[in-house]
């Protein structure tokens, strides 16, 4: 948090990883709960009652860490 020109500026950097498939539609949602920020992904699925379905490939950031340069 910082104070700039009379305004408090808050920053937050949520992250998530998933493996998207071609021709699929996904919903990305950012939100704040308590004093933390989160990001979530679900996939579009019109066959379900709510029109959405759980995306099984979601995981924490850096699912695929960069390879060593050596």
């Amino acid at each position, binding site marked *: 948090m910082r104070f700039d020109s009379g305004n408090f500026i808050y920053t937050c950097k949520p992250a998530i990883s998933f493996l998207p498939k071609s021709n699929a539609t996904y919903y990305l949602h950012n939100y704040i*709960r308590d004093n933390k920020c989160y990001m979530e992904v679900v996939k579009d699925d019109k066959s*379900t009652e*709510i029109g959405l379905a759980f995306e099984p490939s979601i995981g924490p950031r850096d699912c695929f860490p960069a390879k060593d340069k050596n």
Partner: protein
Amino acid sequence: MTYIFRLLIATSFLGGCATSYQSTGFTGGHSLQNGYGRLEKISFAGNGFITPDKVQKYALYRCAEVANEKKKAYFLMYETLVKASLGESTKLPTIGAVGNKPNAFAFVLFLDESRPGALKTAEVIADLSELVTPSKQ
């Protein structure tokens, strides 16, 4: 010193400016977003003079109010899209804050019939109407 004095005066005037139950305005309010499958995201944002508990109840009331407008006797709330996709409903909207400004939201599915976890529209409105629009005495 003068700055502190002015700040105290301004704060004393603003102390009575807690967010009231309203659509989104200068001090906050409720809003609605479509587009999450068949769910609607209903939010209520408060300023620094309203408690998180009250913001959460305002958001809950707004969910019931929208259900009533749609003539739906029941509604299901979900804290997040992932919980919605897993069928895990909630009784209260998710509450969070940026600094000292609380914000509550829920993803809502409107229903004609009751099912486990669903809230009754008329009951929520009746329970919270006094909080939302206090009667003058």
